[in-house]
């Protein structure tokens, strides 16, 4: 297997982008990534595109071909493949691109993610997202996505010391970071009160515990490490790529408050990279809901089970803390265009490792991690990236 490096990254701004279509978004992100890698499109050998549900969001399937076409690749006939794993689609697209390069099958590969979510009414987007869980046995009886994570929160708060304020602090911290990220959907700081007084969605989760509906796209370009310096002075090495699965339905999990797929993917990634959680300078975790970030930092090993609330309230996950979590603002503040999120996480870590993250820069960052979850934890992708 060959070593793989990220040589370029690009993200659109995230938000309710009424003026941009699905294909506009993708082309914009791809162009930024190509520019970043100082690469001509003719050098691209293959593309992988993470997308959860263009079929339901914009009535469009066959995304691989569409994307290749509008990226100007149709006449070059390169392979272009859509990857779907609900909200982990982007993380899996990145992993497929890494595997393609590591195996020697391809050299220069684009991994992208895109979601256009605001072309349907809010009720319809909520229903589409429910498809990431078990439609027959969760969605059918009235489960919503926030409802499922709310049941994780109820279980967690029954068993471990987590206060409502500590949970809210996750959102406050992520909005603080989002306010320092020019692509973030929400660039406003909030207070605990903002969260605690927001509309109830699914008890105990309120509106400000939930990631928003977002349009956006992100793209990264990967290449063999030994060719990376042809394109960039600051290649970022992929130190580990790991993926794990679990039961589709939350009710079938071994433990409601532990995402075993996160535990498995995290352990695999650390083993591949020969690193431990102590070596990680910052991590982008999948905070689709505040409780998800609490579980993620425990399940990845950054603190012990039951201690993430205090850990967060003590500022250990903030910029300047022991392990800064979601410097981008996370899904909560940066936004969550579901198929693009896994790629955006990689973009954020690459920017941090290149010392390019502006007001949210972690000093001396050398190694970063991404954690991307599909559904309530049925798919997890974990990547570790490092400076070379």
């Amino acid at each position, binding site marked *: 297997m060959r070593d793989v490096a990220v040589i370029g990254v690009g993200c659109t701004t995230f938000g309710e982008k009424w003026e941009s279509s699905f294909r506009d978004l993708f082309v914009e992100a791809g162009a930024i990534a190509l520019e970043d890698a100082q690469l001509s499109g003719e050098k691209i050998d293959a593309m992988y595109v993470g997308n959860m549900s263009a079929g339901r969001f914009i009535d469009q399937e066959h995304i691989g071909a569409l994307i290749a076409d509008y990226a100007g690749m149709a006449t070059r006939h390169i392979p272009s493949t859509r990857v779907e794993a609900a909200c982990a689609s982007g993380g899996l697209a990145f992993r497929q691109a890494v595997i393609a390069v590591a195996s020697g099958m391809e050299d220069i590969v684009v991994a992208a993610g895109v979601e256009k979510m605001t072309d349907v009414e809010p*009720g*319809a987007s*909520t*229903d589409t997202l*429910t498809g990431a869980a*078990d439609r*027959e*046995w*969760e*969605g*059918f*009886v*009235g*489960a*919503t996505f*926030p*409802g499922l994570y*709310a*049941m*994780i*929160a*109820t*279980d967690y708060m*029954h068993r471990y010391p987590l206060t409502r304020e500590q949970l809210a602090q996750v959102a406050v911290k992520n909005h603080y970071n989002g306010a320092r990220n020019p692509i973030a959907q929400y660039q406003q700081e909030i207070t605990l009160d903002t969260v605690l007084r927001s*509309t*109830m*969605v*699914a*008890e*105990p*989760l309120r509106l400000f515990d939930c990631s928003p509906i977002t349009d956006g796209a992100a793209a990264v370009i990967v290449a063999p490490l030994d060719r990376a310096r042809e394109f960039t002075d600051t290649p970022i090495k992929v130190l580990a790529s790991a993926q794990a699965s679990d039961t589709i*339905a*939350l*009710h*079938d999990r071994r433990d*409601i408050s532990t995402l075993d797929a996160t535990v498995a993917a995290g352990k695999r990634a650390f083993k591949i990279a020969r690193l431990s959680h102590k070596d990680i300078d910052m991590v982008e975790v999948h905070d689709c809901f505040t409780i998800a970030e609490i579980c993620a930092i425990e399940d990845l090993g950054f603190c012990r089970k039951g201690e993430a609330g205090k850990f967060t309230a003590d500022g250990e996950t903030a910029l300047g803390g022991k392990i800064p979590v979601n410097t981008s603002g996370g899904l909560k503040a940066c936004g969550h265009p579901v198929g693009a999120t896994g790629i955006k996480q990689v973009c954020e870590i690459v920017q941090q490792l290149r010392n390019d993250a502006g007001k949210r820069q972690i000093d001396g960052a050398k190694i970063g991690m991404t954690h991307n979850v599909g559904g309530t934890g049925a798919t997890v992708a974990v990547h570790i990236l490092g400076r070379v």
Partner: protein
Amino acid sequence: MSVARFWRKIPQRYNLIGTKCETCGRHFFPPRTFCPDCRRNGKIVDHKFAGKGTVVTYTIIHAANEQFEALTPYVLAIIQLDEGPRMTTQIVCRPDEVKIGMRVKSVFRRIATDGESGIIHYGTKFMPVE
């Protein structure tokens, strides 16, 4: 949801017919046709569940998908059936009544309607045991 898609699950949804692996004795609801423990050595047969269980975790849904908007706020829970498996269900009770560990029993209820002229989905909910 198409009529056929709903209709083929009627025994499971109306009467809590799940499955059981005769090789290892494990029960499955929602039903599985393949035992994850015994794999190809498993022997799956239908099993009618008694419809008694305990609340494992819950939430009160305030923002629902379109089909359930008229029901809000409603109680959604994961319950553990006495035979072992866990399932997601609505609990027919006031939001302030539901508790972890609460005993519940199955009841036949309307679940949702497919728009104004679509089919009515019936199925099983659970209610507190007095």
